[in-house]
């Protein structure tokens, strides 16, 4: 029953319903007069001759209103009143003293004992009726309020329970990732999803990680509902090997479509490559991210974009900032709940608070996450904070096998294609604008035996593709990447050359066939570039595969050599052929 229905019920009872009235008076004649009077008014009367009887009748009869003579033998009205009020507990039963007393102290004692009002003897019919109606109105209002309060308590309990269930559902979608990886520290309140904050992290198929922190406008259900498709998109695409820019573009597109005009999501996307020691960051509307470096000053990663869910796909800019890092560098991401923490005098923690907390940390050896949490604690003067703030710290620390993608289901030999061939060629500007790796991975993943090895396949494909694109088509020397000046040059030159690509292609040819032991995937990657001197390449020359320096191309080739059964180079290295075997 809803609140308004209860209200109207109460009103109708007030207008029409007869009441059960308990009266107690030791004078038989007075009691009879009062009883007759009340009965004529349509009420049902329980009568008692003393306090004891009155208390007993109160228990058995559950009256709505009590009229008590103040002075009675056995148990007087005061004592009976105390007992009755104690029994009534939270229920409001108006208790009116009928008395010939008039001294202020006596009347005050009646009220102290629990009385709500007085009626004076001798009885007056009009006064009695008016008093009873007035107290009944009070009783009904009290009853209505109590019921509404109980209903609200119940609704609130239901709501909290629903939120907890919703939270569990959300967790199943949102926390399939690697937030518990050893190089991630974070604080997010258990119900932060209903404050509009989200935090996701996923390993990438070929190593590295993606992290997304977001803050929806608004609170409660709308924010939580907006978060669901963001989580699905993030994890689904990350698993398939899409990069941060592709995912952020897709999330924006989705949010533009589903959110009302006045809602949006501030967010930061981070793509971490631990092998290359490089971060890519896209910040749209969240507070500055901070790179805390062991060897250098703090590095600020400010918001450079509009929040997600505002701009149409055509206007949206998914360009990520590329930052070179060192192992052990730590990236701090936060939602504006951190800046909006306030102390007792209402001052805000702000950007200054963040800076003070994490500056000059290398001398103390403290973890920036701990330092910032402690800073907020000290500032707010409270241990209990952070219901609507999210804080995340990602350490640039690569460990082999760290947060590997969960392996797929056990493959069935019946499902999926065993013998197939596929040629895929990407040409001209598409080389710069489209990342074909998720698609190519998807094709290979149709083979159950390969699905278990998605990470290895992705690594093979991405090494082949990046080698063909950066060194084959764009002719970028990999040495550049390993000096601070060269790093910037490498990426600006890469973008420049990509925009000018003409008469170029990269072609993948796949051939898969079943074998006694399982299957073999042959991949040929050809590009239109000049190739490279593979004859004298140190990796291909050396049997020990030792590296003479941090040459990425060298490392890429080494990976290919390690993962594939065989690797062959043709046409000055612009055609690479690998065989990859999988076993039952």
């Amino acid at each position, binding site marked *: 029953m809803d609140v308004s229905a209860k209200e109207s019920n109460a009103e109708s009872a007030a207008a029409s319903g007869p009441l059960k009235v308990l009266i107690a008076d030791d004078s038989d004649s007075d009691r009879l007069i009062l009883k007759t009077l009340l009965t004529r008014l349509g009420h049902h009367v329980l009568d008692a001759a003393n306090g004891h009887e009155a208390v007993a009748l109160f228990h058995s009869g559950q009256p709505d209103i009590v009229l008590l003579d103040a002075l009675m033998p056995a148990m007087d009205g005061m004592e009976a009143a105390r007992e009755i009020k104690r029994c009534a507990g939270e229920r409001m039963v108006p208790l009116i003293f009928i008395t010939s007393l008039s001294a202020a102290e006596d009347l005050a004692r009646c009220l102290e004992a629990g009385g709500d009002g007085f009626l004076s003897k001798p009885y007056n019919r009009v006064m009695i009726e008016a008093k009873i109606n007035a107290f009944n109105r009070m009783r009904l209002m009290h009853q209505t309020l109590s019921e509404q309060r109980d209903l609200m308590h119940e609704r609130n309990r239901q709501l909290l329970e629903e939120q907890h269930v919703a939270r569990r559902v959300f967790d199943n979608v949102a926390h399939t990732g690697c937030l518990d990886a050893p190089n991630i520290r974070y604080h997010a309140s258990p119900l932060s999803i209903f404050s509009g904050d989200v935090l996701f992290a996923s390993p990438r198929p070929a190593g590295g990680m993606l992290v997304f922190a977001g803050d929806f*406008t*608004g609170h409660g259900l709308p924010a939580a509902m907006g978060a669901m498709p963001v989580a699905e998109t993030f994890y689904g695409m990350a698993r398939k090997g899409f990069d941060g820019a592709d995912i952020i573009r897709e999330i924006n597109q989705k949010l533009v479509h589903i959110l009302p*005009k*006045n809602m*949006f999501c501030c967010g930061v996307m981070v793509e971490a490559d631990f092998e290359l020691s490089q971060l890519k960051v896209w910040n749209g*509307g969240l507070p500055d991210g901070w790179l805390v470096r062991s060897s250098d000053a703090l590095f600020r990663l400010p*918001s450079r*974009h509009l929040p997600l869910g*505002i701009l149409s796909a055509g206007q949206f800019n998914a360009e990520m900032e590329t930052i070179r890092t060192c192992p052990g560098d730590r990236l701090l991401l936060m939602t504006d709940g951190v800046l909006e923490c306030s102390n007792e005098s209402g001052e805000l923690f702000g950007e200054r608070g963040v800076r003070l907390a994490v500056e000059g940390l290398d001398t103390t050896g403290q973890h920036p996450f701990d330092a910032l949490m402690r800073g907020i604690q000290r500032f707010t003067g409270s241990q209990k904070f952070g219901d609507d703030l999210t804080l995340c710290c990602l350490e640039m620390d690569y460990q082999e096998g760290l947060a590997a993608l969960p392996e797929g289901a056990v493959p069935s030999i019946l499902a999926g294609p065993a013998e197939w061939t596929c040629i895929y060629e990407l040409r001209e500007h598409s080389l710069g604008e489209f990342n074909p790796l998720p698609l190519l991975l998807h094709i290979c993943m149709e083979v159950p035996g390969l699905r278990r090895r998605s990470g290895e396949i992705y690594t093979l494909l991405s090494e082949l593709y990046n080698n063909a694109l950066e060194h084959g088509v764009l002719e970028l020397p990999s040495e550049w990447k390993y000096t601070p000046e060269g790093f910037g040059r490498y990426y600006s030159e890469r973008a420049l050359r990509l925009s000018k690509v003409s008469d170029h292609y990269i072609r993948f040819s796949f051939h898969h066939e079943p074998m006694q032991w399982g299957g073999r995937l042959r991949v040929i990657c050809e590009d239109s570039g000049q190739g490279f001197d593979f004859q004298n390449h140190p990796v291909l020359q050396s049997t020990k595969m030792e590296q003479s320096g941090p040459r990425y191309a060298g490392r890429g080739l080494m990976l290919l050599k390690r993962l594939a059964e065989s690797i062959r180079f043709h046409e000055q290295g612009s055609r690479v052929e690998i065989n990859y075997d999988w076993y039952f």
Partner: protein
Amino acid sequence: MPIHTRRGHDGKTLIIRIEGRFDFSTHQAFRDAYEHGGTGIHGYIVDLSEATYLDSSALGMLLLLRDYAGGDDAIIAIENCNSDVRKILTISNFEQLFTIR
């Protein structure tokens, strides 16, 4: 009433001035201000000289105004922001959508 509207000197600009906190509590008043601003309006000025605070729901309201005023073709200037308000608009990169003076 924390929101006042008037026409600019050219008669074609609606000036909406907000006093105090620009947050969800002003939602209806802000909407009424531009929806009942009259006809023949070519542009809008949101005057925040008296606004002390602006939250994300206010950003949402500015987006609603932009949509109402024609989306990408809307001519909207946000004027006289104090430094706190300016900072919030900057973090969200709203200068890409509005002229901020």
